[in-house]
């Protein structure tokens, strides 16, 4: 398996480099952030921006170099004169937002915020998907099965931005009705709140509930269908029928024989689901005002902050590729018929 992992990781490298080249070209060819910044400054000050400032902005952001040069600098840092660029040297490059913004620090801080949301949502969606999928399969064609199927399809059909907006409004109405602020609908914590880990968690909890539900519902529906189909397939397999014929109790058959095997597709889907949820988090974070990775990427794209966009795309690429790798590995761990060579 170690050889398999090494081989897969080595394959990931050219895939990532190819993805970064494509992304870099797309980002660079579609915007000129310096001119936009100059325009906005002139709007703000009502005066022309000094040419020396324009030149400095271009030099600071390496817009005085050609696109291939900029990519090379971004990747290697070789030839850098400002000491702030070179991915292979651990430098993410300068942000259009100025020296006060360190892209690496922003990515780290915001990744933690997004991970909090995505992790809770993914765990909850997997739990809910397994529960509803198994119940639907065991009670196939019952009213309960139809109801759960209907709810699943409803969640699947609703765009995340709509679902999140509805849930937000429901939370506001609930707060109004109860005369409390039980559900927080903007931000990921109290403004300026300082405390230890536990205090921070307790403070963040009211902010976490509604966005987690929104992201969870978006992710659970598809997974519950997988779980139902997988459970039905296993329940109709020979070894389950044999177990029943041997007189093993139905509950034991379900738990020990059917469910364990039926969990394999969902378990292998989970890492990829986590990566997919990060994409969904862009919308959820925007609606609930979370300062996560998704919101950061959105702003970076809007502002044409090319190195920030590249950082996000690279992180996303790594997460997705890692998710796929872990999924593949889990197949081998959970299904004894699969061996890696």
């Amino acid at each position, binding site marked *: 398996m170690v050889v398999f992992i090494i081989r897969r990781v080595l394959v990931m490298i050219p895939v990532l480099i190819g993805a970064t080249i494509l992304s870099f070209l797309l980002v660079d060819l579609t*915007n000129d952030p310096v*001119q936009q910044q*100059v325009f906005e400054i002139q*709007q703000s000050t009502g*005066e022309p*921006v000094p040419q020396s400032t324009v030149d400095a902005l271009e030099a600071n952001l390496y817009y005085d170099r050609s696109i291939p040069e900029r990519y090379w600098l971004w990747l290697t840092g070789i030839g850098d004169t400002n000491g702030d660029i070179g991915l292979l040297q651990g430098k993410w490059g300068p942000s259009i937002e100025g020296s006060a913004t360190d892209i690496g620090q922003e990515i780290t801080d915001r990744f933690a915020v997004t991970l909090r949301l995505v992790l809770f949502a993914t765990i909850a969606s997997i739990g809910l998907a397994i529960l509803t999928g198994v119940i639907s399969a065991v009670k196939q064609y019952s009213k309960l099965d139809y109801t759960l199927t209907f709810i699943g399809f409803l969640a699947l059909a609703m765009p995340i931005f709509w679902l999140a907006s509805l849930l937000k409004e429901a939370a*506001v109405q609930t707060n109004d009705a109860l005369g409390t602020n039980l559900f927080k*609908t*903007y931000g990921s914590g109290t403004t300026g709140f300082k405390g230890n880990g536990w205090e921070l968690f307790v403070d963040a909890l009211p902010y976490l509930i509604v966005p987690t539900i929104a992201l969870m519902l978006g992710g659970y529906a598809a997974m519950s269908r997988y779980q139902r189909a997988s459970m039905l397939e296993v329940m109709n397999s020979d070894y389950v029928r044999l177990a029943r014929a041997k007189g093993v109790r139905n509950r034991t058959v379900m738990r020990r024989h059917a469910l364990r095997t039926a969990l394999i597709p969902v378990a292998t889907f989970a890492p990829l689901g986590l990566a997919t949820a990060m994409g969904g988090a862009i919308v959820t974070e925007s609606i609930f005002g979370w300062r996560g990775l998704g919101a950061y990427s959105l702003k970076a794209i809007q502002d044409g902050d090319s190195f920030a966009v590249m950082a996000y795309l690279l992180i996303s690429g790594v997460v997705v590729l890692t998710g796929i790798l872990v999924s593949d590995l889990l197949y081998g761990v959970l299904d004894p018929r699969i061996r890696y060579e």
Partner: protein
Amino acid sequence: MERHHKAAVTIAACTALALTGCGAGDQRPSDLEDCEFEPATCNSGERADGGEITWALDGSWTGWNPTMASDNNAYLSSALTGMWPATGQFDPEGEYVLNEGLFASEPRLTSESPMTVEYTLKDGANWGDGHEVGVDDFIYHWYSISADDDRCAGCTPASADRGSAVESITGSGRTVTVTYDDTYSSAEWQYAEVLSFPAHIAEDQGFDWKNDPRDMADSQTWFSENAPIGWSAGPYTVTDAEAGQYVVYEPNPDWAGETEVTLDKLIFQVMEGLDAIVTEMRQGTIDGASPVSVDVDTITRLEDTDDVDYRVAAGPSWEHIDLNTRGDLLSDPVLRSAVLIAIDVEDIISRTASLVQFDAERRLNHLFRNDSPNFTDHLSATGQGSGDIELAAGILEDAGYTWDDGGRLLTPDGEEVALDYRYTESKSIRKTTAQLAQANLTDLGIDVTLDPIADADLGSVLFGGEFDIVNFGWSTDPTFVDGASQYWDSESSSNFGGLDDPELDAVLDELGDTLDRARAAELANQAVEMAVDDAYVLPIVDSPVAIMVSDRLVNVRDNWASQQRAMYNVAEWGVSES
């Protein structure tokens, strides 16, 4: 909107009652509805001692140094308003109010050539940390905006028009004298910003800013990267802050201003998106906001929200349609004139701004709002913006333009007139404006292609002149001298449509040279008239903006004339005593 009609009727009725001596005891407390008639005193009231206000800012900032290009934006300016050493502020009536915590008297012009301005600091004006404000602070600010590597090596000031023209700054006691070089003069010298960061803090951080231009630049970066905690020149002092997220203020006990601060705490919190702001207003998690845009849905929701007062009025930016005078077809002033005449501005306003602001009116001067004492209507008589297709067609016909059998307009050379119209796609007002203008111009036989621009590309489209017609907005305030040159001077980088009118340039030069503000206003109007004759830019409307406040707040009102909008008078903000 209905609500404001009712408000106008109510106020008129109350005024009538007051004049007849009746109902004196029935006077209701002042609120935002009064701002239509009393813009600088509406929503005033007695303040309780103490209280806390959380105010939402609908945009963020990245660094803390507004003099630097990378940090400069209106939201940073708003976020720092409680502690910043501004020279003064325009109030909602357009009157300039000097910073009472810094200056003992109005700046004085002591010499016209070279222009020399004398500032008298107030006794006790200080940085909130035991240091008095002094001449070094003036010099520090000058260096930071000088765009001169001998003073600040590698600095990137957002603007340097004034800073690069300062010849010397000297001090004597509480008097500071700023002398400019012979090339510089401005009729608006009294509004110049002369302070930013405390020089002694830069020294405390180890920067030899006076003698080493590199250290000076590094100190600028340091101020950009570090929140201004521990010092303040305003009524409040920052106790906690995160760039782009929030600023927490508490009263500054050392402030030298006369206005008593009553709040215990003032929080500015970034909250992007109108929907989020209104939702949080409904829940009472914020007490107010003055976002840069407003839509019908927002107003409907505000109407349904208890304990929240709001008002929609003309804001600080104005929408306009510009033509590219360098274009193959639009280089012809006759065609430009016909295009601007064919566009029906009143119709555009009725389908855009009027949906949210019942008294929205057409802007009729590029430099002066319709309620400015310097305002003159230079547009109506020309027919520009009237939507008069017959008039436009007549002008074109006289100039040799013709129409083919399909009704398409052809130039005297027989070329079909086809133009592209650019606008930023995220602004619904601009999309509607574009569609209506397209319909108007189609009636004239002009084939108009709508080509939306991503917000982040507006700058490159404008600087690159990649348009025939473009619709965007300019920010404004009661100053006008710099604006005129910026819009129309043939050398200006903001003259995006490339207008090149030597006579207009000469007027702009004279406008830049005069120190007499009344004469400057005359020249500005002359410039507007000439720009209108050039058929270059068609003003549409002052974009509507909203202010929404919890009805427990007093002395909080919107202010189009200040970049800080409602925050222009935070020292006076308070929680109602009643």
